[in-house]
């Protein structure tokens, strides 16, 4: 029983981490039809900025509780700076081009940002372990888990609920849904599509950076951390259905729990689990679990 509980809890923790990144990726794809490979770099930038700001905060002898606020601040900073920079400075000039071209453009941005990270922070890893270990542990059976994991789960739920509320309960969200449904018609009806794109990309960038910032205390923030993330979050988004927020949540849960079970009961297969889940889902539903039905255009 304890083993089963551990599998579920480990899976949910991993799913929360996956969801934070996948939510931003699917949001950007849903609105802009861009598979943003640079999402991985924004995650890495979030991690590095968090390690820098929160590290400086702690080094200055400030209250440790404030370091959690620094993590969130880092994500906001990266989103506000990098989102508009990439969208206005690069992507804006590519709209209307084929999706593959846009994918390649974001891949180029990813490579540039990876090198920029090395230029700024060097190749040495950065450690920020205090926020992870400070809240202490709780137990499931005999197993100790850091309370920080609960924080990660809470943050993922909060982000999911906030995005759902913003999309379905606010005027701006409804305008955004209209753009998702039909960009040209929305523009005709007077919606400022360019502004919607800018806001969407900025929020998506913030979510990627938030994923990185909240992961920074658990890992060694080092060059290349964004590479793995983009592959995983892409798989989650495909499982859930490109552009579906609920799909990203279900996809993250499925992948996280199956992976966790594999680690415990069949470790040799762990490497393939995420792709196994993806293949199974795509066989049954080629456009993912919750892909929105496409409007028939005349």
């Amino acid at each position, binding site marked *: 029983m304890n083993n089963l509980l551990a599998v579920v809890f480990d899976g949910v923790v991993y799913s929360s981490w996956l969801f934070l990144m996948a939510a931003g990726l699917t949001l950007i794809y849903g609105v802009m039809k861009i598979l943003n490979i640079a999402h991985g770099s924004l995650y890495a930038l979030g991690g590095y900025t968090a390690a820098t700001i929160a590290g400086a905060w702690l080094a200055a002898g400030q209250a440790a509780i404030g370091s959690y606020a620094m993590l969130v601040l880092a994500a906001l900073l990266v989103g506000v700076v990098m989102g508009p920079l990439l969208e206005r400075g690069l992507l804006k000039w590519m709209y209307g081009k084929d999706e593959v071209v846009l994918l390649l453009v974001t891949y180029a941005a990813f490579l540039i940002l990876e090198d920029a990270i090395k230029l700024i922070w060097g*190749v040495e890893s950065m450690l920020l372990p205090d926020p992870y270990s400070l809240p202490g542990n709780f137990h499931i059976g005999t197993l100790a888990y850091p309370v920080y994991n609960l924080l990660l789960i809470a943050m993922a739920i909060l982000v999911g609920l906030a995005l759902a509320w913003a999309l379905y309960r606010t005027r701006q969200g409804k305008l955004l849904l209209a753009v998702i449904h039909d960009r040209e018609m929305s523009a005709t009806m007077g919606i400022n599509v360019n502004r919607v794109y800018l806001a969407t990309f900025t929020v998506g960038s913030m979510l990627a950076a938030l994923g990185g910032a909240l992961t920074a205390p658990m890992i060694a923030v080092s060059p290349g951390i964004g590479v*793995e993330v983009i592959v995983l979050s892409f798989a989650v988004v495909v499982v859930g259905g490109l552009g579906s927020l609920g799909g990203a949540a279900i996809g993250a849960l499925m992948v996280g729990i199956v992976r966790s079970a594999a680690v415990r009961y069949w470790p040799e297969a762990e490497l393939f689990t995420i792709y196994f889940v993806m293949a199974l889902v795509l066989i049954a539903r080629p456009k993912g679990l919750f892909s929105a039905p496409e409007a028939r255009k005349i």
Partner: protein
Amino acid sequence: MIRIGTVVFSFLVCALASTGALAQQPLKIGIVTFLSGPAAGPFGVPARNGFELVAEMLNAGTVPAPYATKGFGGRAIELVIIDEAGGPQKQVAELRNLAQRVDYVVGYISSGDCLAVAPVAEELKKLTVLFDCGTPRIFEDASYKYVFRTGPPGTMDNTSAALYALERHPNVKSIAGINQNYAWGQDSWTDFEAAMKALKPGIEVKTSQMTKLFAGQFGAEISTLLSSGAELIHSSFWGGDLEGLVLQGAPRGLFQKHIVVLSAGEPGINRLGTRIPDGTIIGARGPFGPFAPDTEFNRWFKTTFQDRYNLPPNYASYKATNALLGLKAAYEKAQKAGAANPSQEQIIAAFENLSFEGVGGTVKLSLGKGHQATMENAIGTAKTVGGELRIVDVKRYAPEQINPPEGLKSEAWIKSGFRK
């Protein structure tokens, strides 16, 4: 007649001048090490620092005896450094280009890269010194004339770790592993598991976790290890994965409830410091870093490196330095045999079976038909003393105790119970 004499005189002057100029030209050494990617921080850049520092000091003639002669036998050396990132296929292409620009090549951290470039170096007939990669397959599965390795093979990391662990904890009955799922991690676990089974028949393997390289997060793996019931856990993790395992495992009691062996843990010491819990068994893939013998030569190296980079040298820095010193020793040995400007063939002849003084102790090219180095290995235990991490209870193992004899393959030798 005068005109012919002038022409002959001019020709002789030019010929002599060009010979002199040739003798003055620096020897170009191609250096291949990770300058980008996850391996750059823990290995690539510390190695590059070692290469650059020792090259500069060799040219200035400030390296202590027996390396006090400037450059290589009086001839300056010049490094041409390239990035190892990109995978074996890219490295093969890079080597083909590099070989045309340099006299010798020294490099390669990744075992995959070493396995790929060794036959190409042989095909190009370019003297290539592998300095860090660990796979024993280089000289166990093939034989090379132009390829040397001045770093000891990875076999000894795990044979010595198993010996040390069982000497300190003879009652261990069960083990588990967490290693990266590629050649290095798989080979390390295979060697360690086989060594433990050979040294203590009947030992039980509870679980072997093979994680994706640079996965970074190990929540589920740590839960599995914690509830596996294994008394001892082995890991050959390096870089960010090693740091992540310690950061995530220590708060959950992984290191307190189990004996943990980090067979390549040394490069993490500077980064993690006292976050490495007491009692963790640590290896350095040779007598390097804090495991290096306290000799005058080693003290000089540590101080010089620390002064330059504000960080102590790690095992990659030691191995890089040893590779250049080995090549210099071979070059000068060939000079002493009568060649003022020794040819590649003469250097190779001098290099084979060479024994030279490295910064971490004596390096003997005693395996792989005189092309593969062996060194002693040292394993120790982490202990925080006065707020600083120390490596205590260091035990040294002679090379012949932890490496297979010439002609035997590592895996078979370990399974035979380390029989000579």
